[in-house]
């Protein structure tokens, strides 16, 4: 993944391609939920993602975990899409590739918090009922029952399928992909790759599918930090550090930290 500024000066977008090779931890939990639902109720699982060619690895991981098939939406035209555009495109792909699917699962959080919006926005685009942060899922007939924890409230919700759920990281701890699964994932299963044209997104629709936000600038967070550097003998440096910052620490932990008279002499 990325260690340097993944900022593309030419296009003015984040270089997501540099971060594309790993499945998001939250998505693994969603994948695990899908696998458990399949074990209990029977189903076919399609893993779908949008990204540069390197995103194929994420799909291989999903196949190794047990997905039945995988779809990659990949087109240079779609690079730099924000969550608004991404959810529009994903919806189009789901309608085309998995028509009549009963349940769509997404990760509820990502380390890149921005993308956590895609699930709820996809639900709007598909016009299906939806709930975020699911910790437990049950299906009876066409009714989906969801247990979740939101803002310190435990809720039980019900809705009819098709529905879209984002899965919390509190439950559904992901299984490890088996070696056999990994081998199969690389050797056997074809990944369908779709571009904008295959999805039927025409130039005329660019406005409808286009990003609403623009990133003006990206900067390293530490640029905001004061980054005071302390050097010197460890004994003095520890005392110097506390002299400067003990009040700050004291305020956070609610314990008094004070320099005693004799400590100063």
């Amino acid at each position: 993944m990325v260690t340097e500024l993944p900022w593309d000066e030419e296009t003015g977008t984040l270089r997501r391609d540099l971060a594309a090779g790993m499945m998001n931890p939250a998505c693994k939990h969603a994948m695990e939920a899908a696998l458990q639902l399949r074990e209990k109720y029977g189903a076919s699982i399609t893993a779908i993602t949008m990204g540069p060619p390197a995103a194929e690895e994420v799909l291989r991981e999903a196949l190794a975990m047990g997905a039945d098939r995988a779809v990659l939406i990949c087109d240079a035209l779609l690079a730099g899409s924000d969550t608004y555009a991404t959810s529009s495109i994903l919806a189009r792909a789901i309608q085309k590739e998995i028509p009549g699917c009963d349940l769509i699962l997404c990760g509820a959080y990502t380390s890149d918090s921005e993308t956590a919006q895609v699930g709820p926005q996809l639900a709007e685009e598909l016009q299906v009922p939806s709930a975020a942060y699911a910790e437990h899922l049950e299906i009876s007939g066409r009714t989906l029952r969801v247990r979740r924890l939101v803002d310190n409230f435990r809720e039980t919700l019900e809705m009819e399928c098709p529905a879209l759920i984002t899965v919390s990281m509190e439950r559904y701890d992901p299984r490890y992909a088996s070696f056999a699964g990994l081998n199969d994932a690389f050797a056997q299963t074809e990944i369908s790759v779709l571009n904008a044209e295959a999805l039927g997104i025409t130039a005329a629709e660019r406005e409808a599918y286009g990003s609403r936000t623009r990133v003006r600038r990206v900067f390293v967070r530490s640029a905001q930090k004061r980054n005071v550097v302390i050097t010197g003998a460890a004994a003095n440096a520890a005392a110097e550090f506390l002299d400067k910052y003990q009040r700050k620490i004291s305020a956070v932990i609610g314990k008094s930290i004070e320099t005693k008279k004799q400590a100063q002499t």
Partner: protein
Amino acid sequence: MKKKSIWVFGDYRNYYQNRVTLQLIARAVDLAREISAEVCAVVVGHDLEEWIWEYTSHGADRILAIDHPTLTSYSTEHYLILMERLVRERDPEIILIGATDFGREFAPRLAKRLKTGLSADCVGLDITPDGLLVQTAPSFGGNMLAEIVTEHHRPQMATVRPGTFREIPHDNTRTSVVERLPLPAHLPAPRVRLVEYERAAQKEHTIENATVMVCGGRGMGNKKNFKKLDELARLLDGDVGATRPVVFSGWAGHDALVGQAGKHIKPKILFSFGISGAIQHTAGLGEADFIVAINKNPQATMMKMADVAVVADAGDWLNHLIRELKKRIRE
């Protein structure tokens, strides 16, 4: 010309812990000055008088309130329908929503319905000279910040992390224009049915909600040194976290793993002992308010990310810090 308006969504669940609505009103007051707008708090629910009064005394110029028994419990779907309608009627310039669990689910859906942009979990909001809202949000696992604008669509929408801004002190001499709006006649039944809900028991303590974190990496040298982090954590009422190499070496359990493959932490104070700052680890660090990094190598990424970078052997400095703290702490 109609006066511009900045809206703040009134999220009042867990009110006494959750001050984000008041914090957003305070920031909206600053932003409104720059674009000559009014600050409007929108509040939906039942028995709203307390919130109307609170939002007024904390700085809102106008309150839009929809108060009805149907709205007694939070319903994302109902709130979406009502907000979409209000926004279309009144065309606010900006909508700010707290990045609570509710807000993070509600705001993206509202933005989608309004066909406008949204940035999530902002840690800064400013106005450009030409009046655009600059939304500063963490990107790439929190290591970087992005300045985001919504240029061509309205309203400009952002969710904001609680604690980012400071509320204006309560002043009950303030007044506002309160508009009490009726519930629309044909509010459809929500497709998502709330079967039951209860307030959760106090959240169990995990490193994910620790206020002080003491993290150690391979730079601690050995297991014996690493174990001393426990003592610092105890002195500071904090918890110990570890990098992946440390967990693989058996110096710490998997529960302590912080990073992409482990826990995501968001402490107020983070001590980082002998950690270089590989992305696999830093991806698990939220926005710690105050980071202290200790490393022999001043060029380590973690040292660059720190508020205070101590150039020293991590194990050695830890011993001295513990000794100094024991002299100074009154338990």
